[in-house]
């Protein structure tokens, strides 16, 4: 064979072997020479968030000269899939976001490192961090909320209720009280006043609201003293009169009181667009919405959610955590990166200035809420939710969310007014109970095998 042909072939096969080897272990041999080591950080988020976190990480690298942070960033949709693939492929990033409802599975499978000692030794004042945020990442392997610390909060996400102040003023309706929630009756009455045809073309073009069931029903249920399950997460409790009453009211906003866009249009996209166009009076507002909503051409502010029979407002507060891999070679640096992003004042300021979250530190949050130069005025409401009336999502602390997802999957006929809430909760309870039992069984097997 011609020599060139041979060389060509050898080169070709060498490329083949190398390219496959390249998929394997990329050792940090290159970085050893300048005494820098690399830790990987995997996270997700929208554009603003990606940018803000990239900036915070650069600041971290400045204070940790020997550490280089390699960033793996994904879109929100892809995150869970990619992380799980990385875990089962034994390529766990050193530091990564953890979703609340994955904590039990990750801890029982030995994915997450117990960082209690490291955090204790560092001079972080955990009392100054939202306890809801910290406790979301404590577990003893069976329940969430107590035990060893397996992560720090990346953020806490209180879902508040916003109202279009400009619309209220235009219609001469007294502004809602920021300290005293509407009762349901008052809420419906205001809603009816605000739903109208503003240009007299025979079509209603201004609605009171348009809630997405996935993100708003919780408030109605909880403030009426009902819940999806008992505290121990062993029994599905949707088949109570209080629960049915709340769900029925939620559906009636569309079907009976007609204060939301017609029954078919429950897609959040539609109502979100309407709110941004200034055609809705009330809409849920999370801290991550502020950067967008502050650019809208109407005034808005935050109020407590309308209260059901308990007389107390309720809503959900989410959280995302930052965890450290159990297999990391650079445990100390990895924990320090998590601590930095979660609790460092400078990092927090970068993130808060980017308007993607509220501060994790209580004192800083209070300062932020008191600052009168930022819109909306009543940002204090966010803090009250975290401190007082926010609940975790029903499936946040169960082994998986199948049982709860089922509720939302089957709910459309209730929202369309085809079946009553009372009938629905009765039929749905046993189905959900079976899934919850299965999840608890999975947890039992997983924690026993630990």
């Amino acid at each position, binding site marked *: *064979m011609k020599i060139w*042909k041979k060389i060509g*072939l*050898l080169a*070709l*096969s060498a*490329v*083949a*072997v190398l*390219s*496959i080897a390249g*998929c394997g272990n990329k050792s940090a041999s290159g970085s050893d020479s300048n005494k820098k080591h690399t830790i990987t950080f995997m996270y997700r988020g929208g554009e603003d968030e990606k940018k803000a976190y990239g900036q915070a990480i650069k600041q971290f690298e400045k204070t940790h000269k020997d550490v280089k942070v390699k960033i793996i960033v994904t879109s929100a949709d892809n995150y*869970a*899939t990619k992380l*799980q693939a990385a*875990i*089962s492929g034994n390529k766990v990033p050193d530091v990564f976001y953890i979703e609340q409802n994955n904590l039990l*599975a*990750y801890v*029982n*499978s*030995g*994915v997450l490192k117990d960082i209690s000692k490291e955090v204790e030794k560092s001079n972080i004042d955990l009392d100054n961090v939202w306890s809801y945020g910290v406790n979301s990442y404590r577990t003893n392997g069976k329940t969430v909320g107590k035990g060893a610390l397996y992560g720090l909060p990346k953020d806490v996400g209180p879902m508040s209720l916003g109202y279009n102040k400009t619309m209220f003023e235009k219609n001469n309706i007294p502004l809602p009280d920021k300290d005293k929630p509407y009762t349901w009756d008052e809420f419906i009455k205001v809603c009816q006043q605000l739903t109208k045809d503003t240009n007299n073309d025979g079509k209603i073009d201004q609605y009171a609201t348009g809630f997405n069931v996935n993100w708003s029903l919780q408030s109605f249920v909880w403030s009426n003293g009902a819940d999806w399950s008992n505290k121990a997460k062993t029994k599905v409790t949707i088949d109570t009169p209080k629960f049915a009453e709340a769900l029925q009211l939620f559906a009636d906003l569309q079907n009976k009181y007609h204060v939301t*866009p017609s029954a*078919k*249009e*429950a*897609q959040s*996209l*539609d109502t979100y*667009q309407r709110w941004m166009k200034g055609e809705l009076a009330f809409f849920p507002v999370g801290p991550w919405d502020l950067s967008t909503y502050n650019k809208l051409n109407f005034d808005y502010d935050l109020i407590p959610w309308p209260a059901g029979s308990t007389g107390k407002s309720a809503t959900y507060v989410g959280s995302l955590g930052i965890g450290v891999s159990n297999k990391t070679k650079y445990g100390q640096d990895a924990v320090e990166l998590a601590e930095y992003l979660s609790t460092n004042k400078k990092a927090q300021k970068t993130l808060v200035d980017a308007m993607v979250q509220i501060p994790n530190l209580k004192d800083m949050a209070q300062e932020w809420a008191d600052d009168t130069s930022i819109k909306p005025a009543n940002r204090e409401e966010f803090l009250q939710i975290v401190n007082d009336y926010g609940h975790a999502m029903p499936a946040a602390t169960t*082994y*998986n*969310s*199948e049982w709860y*997802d089922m509720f*939302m*999957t*089957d709910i*459309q*006929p209730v929202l369309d007014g085809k079946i009553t809430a009372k009938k629905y909760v009765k039929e749905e309870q046993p189905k959900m109970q079976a899934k919850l039992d299965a*999840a608890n069984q*999975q947890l039992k*097997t*997983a924690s026993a*095998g630990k």
Partner: protein
Amino acid sequence: MDSTKVVKKKKSMFHHDSKLYRDEHRAAFLMIILPVLGFLIFSLVPLIYSVFASFTNWNGIGQMTFTGLTNFKLMLKDNYFWKTLYNTFFLMIGIPIGLILSFLLASALSRGLKGTTFFRVIYYIPVISSLAAIAIMWQWAYNGDYGLVNQVLALVGIKGPNWLQNVHTVKPAIIAMSVWKGLGYSMLLYLAAIQSVPKSYYEAADLDGANSFQKFKNITWPMCRPVTFFLIITNVIGGSQIFTEINIMTPTGGPEYSSATIVWYIWQKAFKNFQMGYASAMSLVLGILIFIITALQFYMNRKSDYQLS
């Protein structure tokens, strides 16, 4: 006869212990090493691994415990498994529709009318576009309030439904989109098949006084049969694995799971609910089902293939 002799002679040159044979053999081996390694590492090993995982209660990240046939028994009783399987096959209604439409289009474009190239490009654009982008675009088009589809319907006085949020319209909506997306590809293959039919066949038919329908029925359509067969096989296999458009257009599986497909359900189980073992078992069953269907199709096509050659 002559040609076979030559081949035989050549073969003897490549005797197994000749240097030339060994050299060429080694070269050939080096040539194919990349795809073979790729297949072993990225296809065969994961395949075997997932077959193994389907007999365990693996959660995808932790320990595996062997549980025998538990997953398969569970599947029989799992209503969602059957529902998503049904949905998947229901969505395949789009396959014959797409084939007929693309065949008609190809027939029209093969007549050498003006602007053929233009239309070929137009119909092919969806094929080269990213599926995710297309799904997002159609999601907008189907929007109940502002969607293009309903706006067009409104012009003729019809009030369209909220396509993707309605149990009865979500499947037809997704079928329509898949047909639209696949049209260009099938059309191109049909176009090639139609154009490669020898002119002499038609001339002979003309002499026999055949009308255009007879020519179509007895020449064009049978000559395109291998393409039809190929398209049916690949479309059925692709259709069984439909996922991206479902996950983007109806991220929760549609109202009452009415657009949830089997691969979407498998993905949910594997990556959302920590049931990788169960998900693997479902994939195994799906794989076997696809294999059986494809084998059946080959079996049914056996006779016509013989007749053609």
